[in-house]
């Protein structure tokens, strides 16, 4: 401990002698650490933006789409024919053990009127599970109840964009809007969700009970059919399993055999998300490694200056050795000096890095993530740079021959 204090004092004095040189040497580390911290902060901020967008779709999701059919040689695309039913959805929920929630949907576009305002938006018939699956909280009001679904009540939940366009400053809760001329009571207002990863406005939507949509709003020629079914697996680990279970169940229910083409399709949304998330991670890794290069360059600067310093102070080293400094005393002295340089540089660089990350996030409007462990790693890393690049010069100093060192002019 005393030795450490002593070495620190010697190192501080040695650095004070050449303040300008110490500062310039540190600058390399300052810039390096600042770059690493700023880049990682901005990178992980950007990555958070992406993963937030992805999470807004919902997590661990499977999408079951009605199938294509062939009639008279014409093949329709996916979703072309309503082959899925509400019963399919309930079967998935009840018979697939890896499935947590299921929300069947019926979707259409409709003109919506309130007072003298009108707005065209997406109207989606669904069940209360929809909000659970999409992790979509209500700003006000309540979710659908089972009675709303079973009783096909004329209630609705509206998104923020719809609320803004129809109501402006008026509180929409409890008011009546007309969807395709049918009056609906607004029972809930959805929280703002923002843009989807594809750039569509997720808040431009109205949810109504599934049965209401099937029977009253989009009365189809195939009663009881649904559009897409959203399925949430119990966890990311069983997502694949859930996909297999749903496939198997629907094959059974739709009597699909080896000779018959499936009339439905199960899509795993998480795979897309993983790709997106992966790419943003790669991005921030890339930024971080580019910044690390400047840190390495800074470290080489430290090594250079330490070598000069050892040469300059050869005589001092000789004196110290003559009066009894051991190799490790000299080694420790020069290592301390190098580590002190880089650690001080690291701390200043950290302040600078955090500062510039905050500035960038103010200017660009991105969130920046400065985590405690980024900072800890940066400081440790700068000390590590000191040890790594300081070791060779220190070793060189420690292995000098005392006679030669004393004679050095």
């Amino acid at each position: 401990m005393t030795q450490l204090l002593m070495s620190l004092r010697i190192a501080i004095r040695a650095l004070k002698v050449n303040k300008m040189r110490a500062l310039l040497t540190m600058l390399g580390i300052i810039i390096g650490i600042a770059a690493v911290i700023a880049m990682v902060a901005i990178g992980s901020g950007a990555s958070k933006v992406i993963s937030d967008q992805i999470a807004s779709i919902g997590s661990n999701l499977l999408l079951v789409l009605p199938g294509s059919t062939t009639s008279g040689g014409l093949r329709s695309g996916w979703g072309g024919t309503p082959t899925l039913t509400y019963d399919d959805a309930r079967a998935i929920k009840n018979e697939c053990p890896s499935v947590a929630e299921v929300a069947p949907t019926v979707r259409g576009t409709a003109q919506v009127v309130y007072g003298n305002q009108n707005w065209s938006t997406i109207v989606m018939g669904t069940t209360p599970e929809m909000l659970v699956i999409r992790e979509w909280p209500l700003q006000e009001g309540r979710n659908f109840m089972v009675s709303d679904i079973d009783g096909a009540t004329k209630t609705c939940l509206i998104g923020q964009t719809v609320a803004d366009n129809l109501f402006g400053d008026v509180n929409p809760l409890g008011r009546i809007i007309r969807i395709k001329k049918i009056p609906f009571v607004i029972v809930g207002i959805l929280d703002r969700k923002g843009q989807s990863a594809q750039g569509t406005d997720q808040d431009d939507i109205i949810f109504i009970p599934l049965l209401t949509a099937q029977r009253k709003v989009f009365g189809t020629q195939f009663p009881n059919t649904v559009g897409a079914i959203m399925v949430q697996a119990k966890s990311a680990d069983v997502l694949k399993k859930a996909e297999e279970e749903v496939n198997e169940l629907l094959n059974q229910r739709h009597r699909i055999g080896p000779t018959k083409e499936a009339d439905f399709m199960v899509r795993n949304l998480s795979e897309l998300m993983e790709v997106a998330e992966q790419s943003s991670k790669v991005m921030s890794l890339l930024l971080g490694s580019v910044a690390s290069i400047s840190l390495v360059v800074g470290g080489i600067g430290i090594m250079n200056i330490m070598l000069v310093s050892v040469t300059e102070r050869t005589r001092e080293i000789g004196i110290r050795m003559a009066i009894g400094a051991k190799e490790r005393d000299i080694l420790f002295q020069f290592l301390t000096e190098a580590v002190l340089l880089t650690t001080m540089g690291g701390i200043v660089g950290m302040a600078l890095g955090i500062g510039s990350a905050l500035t960038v996030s103010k200017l660009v409007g991105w969130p920046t993530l400065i985590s405690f462990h980024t900072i800890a790693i940066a400081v440790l890393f700068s000390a590590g740079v000191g040890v790594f690049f300081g070791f060779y010069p220190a070793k060189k100093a420690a292995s000098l021959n005392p006679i030669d060192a004393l004679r050095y002019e």
Partner: protein
Amino acid sequence: MDAVVRLDNITKIYTMGDQRVEALRGISLTVEQGEFVAIMGASGSGKSTCMNILGCLDKPTSGEYMLDGVNVGTLSRNELAEIRNTKIGFVFQGFNLLARTTAQENVELPMIYARISAAERHARAQAALGKVGLSERADHYSSQLSGGQQQRVAIARALVNDPAIIMADEPTGNLDTRTTFEIMSIFQQLNKSGITIIMITHEPEVAAFTKRNVLFRDGMIISDTQVENQTDASQMGEPA
């Protein structure tokens, strides 16, 4: 009593490329406790090489060197550093104080490497500076001291770990006559108090202050005489 220094048939051969230089060819020398020895000789006579070996800065090619009962020849680099630290005090021609360091800190330096506590270091450095008459200059930086004062700080530094022997390498080479007397007077006082001193010099007048003169030539000792009438340096203050 055992001898402080016993050199037995020491040789030192430097090889530079294919050239062999025999710097020492069979030196045997015994120095007892309390002696004050001047090693003399022309440059190239081997006296500096001998000093380096005596000071444990260098190892002999062959022969045995016993210092204060320790066989130095078998020690490692680090063990030699410890011997230098505890058993030897160096005084150099060029003073060799650390720059930008106070007298006090210079004197404390050997004790730092001996891992002595700060409080004890401080007290002992004060005492050593007192012995060379520089107590009131303890806080002065090396550059603020005159040559004679710097050399006195160096002597204090050499004394501070209570070494078995003080090795002085031309300690007065850079000093004027008056300061030379001053420094030699200090050495004589220290010697009177029982400290063993070996000093290199090429000036016979300086050697006259010691008790024994050893003359080197061509890597060998050619004469070893006791000084009949040792000159008292403290009486030489005024030039005749």
